[in-house]
């Protein structure tokens, strides 16, 4: 510190303090530069220019329909008052930079704390505005998403499926009552639901007029204590549900699965009589009854299948990644490749390629792989393998670089050759980190393969994104639960294994 002070004393400001301040008002930061504080001045100039530039962009963004900056500015602060706050902060910062330039020229070590706080403040407010952060919206509308959230959090209603059967009993009704009407014989098996009506014929209701014939409907062999709907089927096989007084009519069966109900033949526009002079209708009692024991739902089964696919997807890509990255890691290790310029060049090239591959996200690799081999788990495996090679290649080579050279030296000193030295001194040292990195990578790959699925790389992610798009949040919830459980188990297992090998 004293050395720095000394240097400042030796080289005083090029300009008087007031001039430094005034110059700073023209170009923020220039005052500091003239006060022999070049780096600080440059930083402040860049800070000020970027803050001002970002602010102008946000004004344009907020009021893009207005013409002319003044109109835009007015509209922007009207829509988003925070833009005015940012302007005030930037102006205060501008003045503070000038004041700081004055102080810098006047004293060796000005206290610039407030100015730097303001620099950070201006950028955080800008960030708040750019990020469209609106806590009020979260508070106001967040509650609306709660039912959806609950379905995701507790989706198990959909885990079981109750097989259902439609129980139908029907009886023929001849309209109007006709002698010798041809009613096809009806065979009801013993124990099957049945319906009878008396009389089995009658007249339709008239629109805003007389009610049709009242029929006494008796049913039996239905599921007990269950809601039953009444439907009509007219002569052209049109089905419509029976209403009386505007309401759908329902009847609940007794404990024996029987019911009794009076029904009135409804109104119908279609001509009732054909060439035979009468129409044959049916009146039906319909019941949706659950039969048998509940079974696991299709969604659950599909989730399990796809979860297994995902785990194996992660496993296979880790396997290929490990196999391919081990040789790569040896030629990417500085300590093994520093023998001459040729090996050093290989080391540099391999390292660079690994860095480039690693910097491309596996999601992007998945999209590329899908173009190459089409949708499905193989594309996911390819994508994760490529990324694993790069990531593991780097981790492995760092493990090789950090081995203790002592044992290597000691084994060499016994007269061992290269292969013996690697086998006895290098391999035992790199096994623990290799195992640990491999397990860690498997962990990452399973996690990633859930995401890879979302772009079509196979696995449970594909199901998940489909269900979310279908707004089937319960099924999505099941998938999310499986992912969470698997990841948690994997986390535990991998940390256990890594601890054991440490």
């Amino acid at each position, binding site marked *: 510190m004293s050395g720095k002070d000394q240097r400042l004393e030796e080289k005083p400001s090029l300009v008087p303090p007031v001039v430094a301040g005034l110059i700073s008002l023209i170009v923020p930061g220039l005052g500091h530069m003239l006060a022999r504080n070049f780096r600080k001045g440059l930083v402040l100039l860049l800070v000020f220019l970027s803050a001002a530039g970002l602010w102008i962009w946000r004004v344009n963004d907020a009021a893009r329909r207005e013409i002319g900056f003044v109109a835009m500015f007015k509209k922007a602060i009207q829509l988003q008052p925070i833009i005015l706050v940012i302007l005030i902060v930037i102006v205060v910062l501008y003045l503070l930079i000038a004041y700081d330039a004055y102080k810098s020229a006047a004293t060796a070590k000005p206290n610039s704390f407030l100015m730097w706080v303001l620099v950070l403040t201006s950028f955080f407010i800008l960030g708040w505005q750019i990020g469209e952060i609106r806590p009020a919206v979260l508070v106001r509308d967040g509650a609306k998403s709660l039912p959806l959230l609950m379905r995701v959090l507790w989706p198990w209603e959909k885990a079981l499926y109750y097989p259902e059967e439609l129980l139908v009993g029907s009886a023929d009704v001849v309209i109007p009552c006709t002698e010798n009407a041809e009613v096809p014989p009806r065979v009801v098996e013993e124990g099957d639901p049945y319906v009878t009506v008396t009389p089995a014929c009658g007249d339709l209701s008239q629109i805003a007029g007389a009610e049709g014939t009242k029929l006494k409907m008796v049913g039996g062999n239905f599921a007990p204590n269950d809601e039953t709907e009444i439907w009509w089927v007219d002569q052209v096989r049109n089905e419509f549900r029976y209403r009386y007084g505007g309401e759908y009519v329902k009847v609940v069966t007794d404990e024996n699965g029987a019911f009794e109900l009076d029904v009135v033949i409804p109104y119908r526009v279609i001509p009732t009589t054909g060439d035979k002079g009468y129409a044959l209708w049916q009146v039906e009692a319909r019941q949706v009854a659950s039969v048998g024991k509940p079974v696991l739902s299709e969604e659950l089964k599909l989730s399990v299948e796809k979860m297994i696919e995902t785990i194996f997807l992660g496993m296979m890509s880790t396997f290929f990644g490990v196999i391919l990255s081990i040789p790569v890691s040896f030629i990417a290790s500085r300590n093994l490749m520093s023998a001459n310029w040729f090996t050093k060049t290989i080391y540099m090239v391999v390292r660079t390629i690994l860095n480039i591959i690693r910097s491309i996200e596996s999601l992007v690799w998945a999209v590329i792989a899908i173009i190459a081999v089409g949708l499905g788990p193989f594309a996911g495996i390819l994508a994760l393998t490529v990324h694993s090679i790069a990531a593991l290649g780097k981790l492995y080579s760092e493990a090789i670089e950090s081995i203790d050279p002592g044992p290597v030296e*000691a084994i060499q000193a*016994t*007269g061992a050759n290269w292969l*013996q030295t690697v086998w006895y001194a290098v391999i035992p040292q790199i*096994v623990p980190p290799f195992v640990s990195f491999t397990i860690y990578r498997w962990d990452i790959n399973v996690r990633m393969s859930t995401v890879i699925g979302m772009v079509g790389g196979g696995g449970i992610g594909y199901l998940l994104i489909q269900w979310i798009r279908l707004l089937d949040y319960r099924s999505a919830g099941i998938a999310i639960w499986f992912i969470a459980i698997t990841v948690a188990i994997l986390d535990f297992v991998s940390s256990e294994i890594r601890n054991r090998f440490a």
Partner: protein
Amino acid sequence: MLEVRNLTKIYDDGTVALRNVSFIVPDGEFLVVIGLSGSGKSTLLRCINRLIDPTEGQILWDGVDITSLKGDDLRNLRRKIGMVFQQFNLVKRSTVLTNVMAGRLGYSPTWRSITNRFDDADRERAQTALKRMGITDQANKRADELSGGQQQRVGIARALMQEPKLILADEPVASLDPVLAHSILQHLESLNKEDGITIICSLHYLDLVQRYGTSVIGLRDGRVVYEGNKKQILRMTDAEFKTIYGEEAERMGGISGELLEEEAVPDGEEVTE
């Protein structure tokens, strides 16, 4: 007989570790190399088994210049030279037995050794070496489970497996407490006296040097600044001490030369300085 002639080592970064070092080690000697850290002791020892290639000069071992050996010749040289290290340099995760067997690698075919198949004679040798070092019980433990003194004995057992004619010991007791230091040096001394193995050992403490060395060379900044035999070590004067360790060095431990000068030298020989 080992003869070092005008040995110079300059590292790639320009550091001069050894400058024109010459000395002779007759067979059966316990030569102690003393000097400050960075004086070139480790470099000197590693030049002898060619873990480091010297820049200039020759090392003649029984008349053969070993500085130009390559490939199999170099490995055949190395297997006759055991080495013991300050940090023991055991493979920590391997068992004691595996570490000891590693001393036999120079004699074993590659394929057999990496599949861990050593012949019965080698296993016999390993048992003998372990027994001699008193660590038979520890054979199946992992090397890093052992205490420092035990690890160093494994290191010596490994060197012993090579059936060496020469053992290089690079500050073998610098990481051990004084009691263990004596125990380890006694093991080396017994190899020297009973088996006739030449020992070149770098040490820090003068009392150990006086107790175990049969001759001494002192290095400073890569130069030999002191040579002495057993009697001369015992009579090392403060002036000699300071040529090795520098003017500001304070003598600790060991017998001072001036104090001895009045007394009779143990076997009554004339001391030449």
